[in-house]
Every structure is written in structure tokens, then in C-alpha cells.
């Protein structure tokens, strides 16, 4: 028994000395809690919606009011035509549009017919799409109950909601999440290869020998970087093929410009990985940190839940994540076919990150002691 305790004591001492592992053990549960909280409690908040009320009745007004009074929705525009509705959805100005037909209230009152409304939902992000649908149904039911309580209208037979999902007609869960897999998987792979690059040599002691050779710091960095670039590009194309051919997800945008943006992203992450490689002391530390970052990014990159629905301080954190920007770009290009120039709010930050991470990595590497 005593031997076992001695062994355990030694393990404790070693754990306390390993600051990165210790930090990881403390942060990991916290991060995961944060993650689950966000993912499950993720509110559908302040979703902009438009409505084309062709009925203009008391009932339709009540319905609109119920929806706009809820926290989930925010009435953006009262549209006057189908074309206007389509435009608003396409622009992304609204995420939901409701079309209330002219016979809405009449159909609702008559016992032998059912009223219906059409909801057009931007299905780019599936989880939101589902939640929105849920909220609309809830609002409609609330309305029905209210009216029943008020006027005892037992003849009210219910309201059908015809749902028309744009961009993601099958509301296939896979489409939204799978497209987000491309950036996420690429992120992890490139980061790991780059992060292990230098610290591996330092840990094994081979760096010392390299330093006295004619290899310059630039050569070293490019040599390691090229390796990570190769892995990233290969992975990028494999995933593209898997997504488009294997999972049959349509690629509605321009492949060429998307690939260029993908390259930018890969290079950015090579810079980040190189930074990690310089500041960590062992491969284990480097990989643990990459793992921790990946967990954080599950939330902050908008992988599961869109960032626009997060509290402000989390949105600020998301804004400095290159992965978040590239994930948004990926979804836009695949599912909506958005051209590059329209995504400048993601492309510009991405470019800045590329320069920033490369510059910092270079500056630190040149000065680093072996």
C-alpha cells in the first residue's frame, strides 16, 4: 500500500510541475461547460423577419404582433410583394419571411377549412432554422389559445404553416454542419502539424545541430511551413470531394476563389501553429493546446450555433477567430453561392489575420533561442 501511495505522491508532484497539463485539466471542464451551455441554451434571439400580410385582418395583425413581441423575433419589414420578400431573404436582411394569404382569417373561422401561412426560412444554419420553425409554431399556438380563451371560438380549427426552406430545401442537418466540417478539420490538421514542427526538434535535441548548419531561420520556417501547407491543401481537396461527391452537398459558389480563400486560411493557421511551436516546451504541450483551442472553436467559430445570436462579449471573441470567418465564408459559398466581394466583412479580417500571424511567427522565430 505504501508503495502505491509513494507512486501517487510522485505523480502529483509531476502534475503540479507541468503547468500546461495542469492548465488544461482546469480549463477543459470549464470550456466544455461553456460549450454545452451555449449549444443547448442557444437562444434564438432577435431574429429579423419580414411579413407580407395579404389579409390585413384582425387575426393576421394579432399573429404579427405576437411574433414581434416575442424575444425571438424582431419585425424588420412589412413587405408588399413576393419579389420583395425574396430579395430580403437573399440579401440576408431577414432570416425568416412570412406570407399571410388573403383568405387567412376567413379560412381560420370556417370549420371545414384550415388557414395556412407560408414561412420562408433561411436554412443556412440548420439549428437556427429548426429553432425558428419551433418558435413560429409556438407563437401560432399561443395565438390560437388566446383567441379561444377570449372569444370561445371553438370553431377555430388551427393554422397550418407551410414551410419553404431556402438554400437548404431539404433542411438536411448534414448540409450546414458538414460544410462547417471542412474549415474545422482543416483547422485542426494544419494547426497540429505546424505546432509540432519546431518543438519536436527542440524536444529531441536535433534543433541544436540544425542551428550550426548553413540553414537560415527563413529556410527552417519555410521548410516546416511547406509541410503543413501540403497537408492542409491535400486535406482541403479530399474534404471538397467528400462533401460534393460523397455527401452530395451542392457547391453553389465559385470554386476557384473559394480555394484561394482556403489557402489564405491554411497559411494563417500555419502562422498560428508556428507561434505555438515556438512558445511551448514539448510536443505534448503543443498538442494539448491545439486540442483546447479546437474545443473553444467549436463554440466560437459558429460551428454549431451562429455567432450573431451570442452575447456581445462572445461575439467579440468570435470576431478574432480566423476559423469563424472562414466557416462563415464556407457556408456562404457552398449553400448560397455568395461571391467573394460580398463577403468582405469576413474576407478582410481573414487577410489581416494571415499577415498578422505570419508576421508575428517570423518575428518571434528569428529571435528564439534554441
Amino acid at each position, binding site marked *: 500500500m505504501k508503495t502505491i501511495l509513494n507512486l501517487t505522491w510522485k505523480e502529483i508532484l509531476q502534475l503540479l510541475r507541468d503547468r500546461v497539463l495542469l492548465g488544461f485539466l482546469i480549463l477543459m471542464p470549464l470550456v466544455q461547460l461553456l460549450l454545452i451551455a451555449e449549444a443547448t441554451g442557444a437562444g434564438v434571439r432577435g431574429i429579423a423577419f419580414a411579413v407580407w400580410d395579404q389579409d390585413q385582418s384582425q387575426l393576421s395583425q394579432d399573429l404579427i404582433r405576437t411574433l414581434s413581441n416575442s424575444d425571438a423575433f424582431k419585425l424588420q419589414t412589412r413587405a408588399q410583394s413576393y419579389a420583395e420578400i425574396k430579395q430580403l431573404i437573399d440579401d440576408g436582411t431577414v432570416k425568416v419571411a412570412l406570407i399571410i394569404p388573403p383568405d387567412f382569417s376567413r379560412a381560420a373561422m370556417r370549420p371545414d377549412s384550415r388557414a395556412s401561412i407560408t414561412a420562408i426560412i433561411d436554412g443556412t444554419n440548420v439549428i437556427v432554422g429548426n429553432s425558428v420553425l419551433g418558435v413560429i409554431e409556438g407563437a401560432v399556438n399561443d395565438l390560437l389559445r388566446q383567441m379561444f380563451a377570449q372569444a370561445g371560438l371553438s370553431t377555430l380549427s388551427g393554422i397550418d404553416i407551410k414551410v419553404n426552406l431556402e438554400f437548404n430545401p431539404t433542411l438536411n442537418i448534414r448540409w450546414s454542419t458538414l460544410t462547417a466540417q471542412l474549415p474545422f478539420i482543416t483547422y485542426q490538421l494544419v494547426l497540429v502539424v505546424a505546432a509540432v514542427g519546431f518543438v519536436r526538434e527542440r524536444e529531441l535535441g*536535433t534543433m*541544436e*545541430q540544425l542551428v550550426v*548548419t*548553413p*540553414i*537560415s531561420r527563413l529556410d527552417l520556417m519555410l521548410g516546416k511551413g511547406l509541410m503543413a501547407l501540403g497537408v492542409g491543401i491535400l486535406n482541403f481537396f479530399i474534404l471538397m470531394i467528400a462533401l460534393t461527391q460523397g455527401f452530395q452537398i451542392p457547391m453553389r459558389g465559385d470554386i476557384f476563389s473559394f480555394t484561394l480563400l482556403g489557402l489564405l486560411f491554411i497559411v494563417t493557421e500555419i502562422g498560428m501553429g508556428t507561434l505555438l511551436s515556438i512558445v511551448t516546451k514539448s510536443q505534448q504541450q503543443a498538442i494539448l493546446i491545439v486540442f483546447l483551442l479546437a474545443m473553444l472553436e467549436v463554440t466560437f467559430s459558429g460551428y454549431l450555433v451562429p455567432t450573431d445570436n451570442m452575447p456581445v462579449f462572445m461575439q467579440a471573441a468570435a470576431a478574432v477567430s480566423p476559423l469563424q470567418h472562414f466557416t462563415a465564408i464556407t457556408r456562404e459559398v457552398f449553400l448560397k453561392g455568395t461571391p467573394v466581394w460580398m463577403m468582405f466583412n469576413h474576407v478582410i479580417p481573414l487577410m489581416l489575420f494571415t499577415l498578422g500571424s505570419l508576421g508575428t511567427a517570423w518575428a518571434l522565430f528569428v529571435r528564439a*533561442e534554441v
Partner: protein
Amino acid sequence: MDNTGHIQTEKLTKTFRKVQAVRGIDLDVAPGEIYGLIGPDGAGKTTTIRMLAGVMKPTSGIARVSGFDTARQAEKLRGQVGYMAQRFSLYGDLSVRENIEFYADIFGVRGSEREPRIQRLLRFARLEEFQQRDAGVLSGGMKKKLGLACALIHRPRILFLDEPTNGVDPISRREFWDILSDLHIDGVTIFISTAYMDEAERCSRVGLMYQGEIIRQGTPQALRQLVRGDLLAIVTSDLTLAETTVGKINGVIEVQVYGDRLHVFVDDANKRQPEIESALNNAGVSIKQIRPAAPHLQEAFISLVTHQGNLDAD
């Protein structure tokens, strides 16, 4: 004036956080010399060599190799210098052959010279049959020889070797020194740190390093003379008792325990030998052997370091 092979330092210092590992040392090694740096563990030998080889930057002071400042003009020295670190610093997951080829490529050894040179190096390192073996599974001695081969692939005029024969069997050690002798004849400057005294004897000059400073420098002969007095080697039945007994005798300068025997330094061997014999007999210690011996560098070294330690303690 061609400075190639000249190693020089002025007040070379390296401080790690609060510890001064190397305290302002001055060195002047002429081209073609074999200079040996000896010292106990933690004396600062490895740090010194790393600064000279350009692996580490000094905190203050200057190191010049072939006239170039190792900190500021490091690029000029790349490819001119060969370096062998104390711990195995080659790629364990690559084969012997792949390692040598990698360094040959890095140092730009190409064309018709490349293959014969690789073969020659493999041959003198006795690694020809082990070419395809992963470097990580080689024995300690073979690893060191591979390290030397990779450090020599580009025919440097200056070699920095950090305890290169540490843990190497005696035969491999001799082979190693055969190679170094050839290089010495060829005019290569060799700067080597070692814990083996017999190797120190083979150097042109030796520097004794202790706690970051060079306390003595000179040829092995000169250093041997520094040992004061005559040396008597005594084998007894009771080492501990003998040590204390002899230490009290007048005229005994120093007593060193050397394996199973005592090395006693006296002012006059003829006078003191009988005194020692009777003192030991009185103490009940029987003497198996007592004879004069010639002091080696080993004794000088131990003596100087102990003396220095005593000075510091005061």
C-alpha cells in the same frame, strides 16, 4: 592575415536568470591546436562550447572564431565549423545513411566528392554494415561516431566537440582519437571538452574550468608541474583510517583517495615515507604497498579544484 582556425574570447559571459554559468573567460586558441577544456560537472564547459559554436548567444563579452564574431557574424561561420553536442542530436527515426545524407545535402556536399566522402566517413566510424539501421537504436559509442561523422561531412577547419567520448568503450575511444589525430595533422583546430584525463594529456593545451571561470591554462606538462611536492601511492588494509592517520602527519601537503589507494603529496618523499609507515603501523593499518609515483594531470586537476574550492569557501 588569415585568421582561419583561430578561436578567441574576451570576457565571455553567460548568465541564466540568476546563475552566472560562464564568468568573463578569456581564451586564445591558435589555429591547428587541440585545446582541451576540463572541469567538473556544472563548470560551464557545455555553455562555453555552445557559445563558441554559435548555438547560443553570450550575455556579454565577445567570442571570435576565425576572426568572425559568433553572435553578430554567425552566418559567415556556417559551414566552416563542425559541432558535436553532448547529447545525441541526430534523427533517431532516420537511418545512419539518411542522417549523413541529410547533413551532406545541408552543407552542400554534392557532385563527385559526395559519395566517396560518405563512404570514407562510414568506414572510419565503423558504421558501414549499420548504414540502414535507425540511428536511435545504435549503441552509445556508435551514436557518438555517427555524430562525429556528420560533424565532419563538410570538412570544417574548426571542430567543437562537447564530451564526445562520454560513455564510449575504450576501443571506440581510441579509434575516435585516431581520427582526431589525423585531423590535427591536417591542421584542423579542435576545441574539445572532456572528463577523461588521459584525453586531456593528448591536447596541445588544456584549460581547467571551475564554476564558470578558467582557473589554469597551459600545456599538460606545465599543469602537471603545478602539483606541489612528491607523490607517494599507498595501498593499505584500511583506507579510511589510513586517510585520517596520514592527514595528520607533518609535511603532508595533501591526501587524495584514488580508487583503492591513497595518493599522498609530501614535501620530501625520502624524509616522510618512513614517518608515514610508522604512523600507519601505530594505528594498526597494514601497508600492502608504498612507492613514489609520477603525478598525472588527474592529480593536478583534483588538487587545483580542491584548492580553488577551499579558497572560495574562505
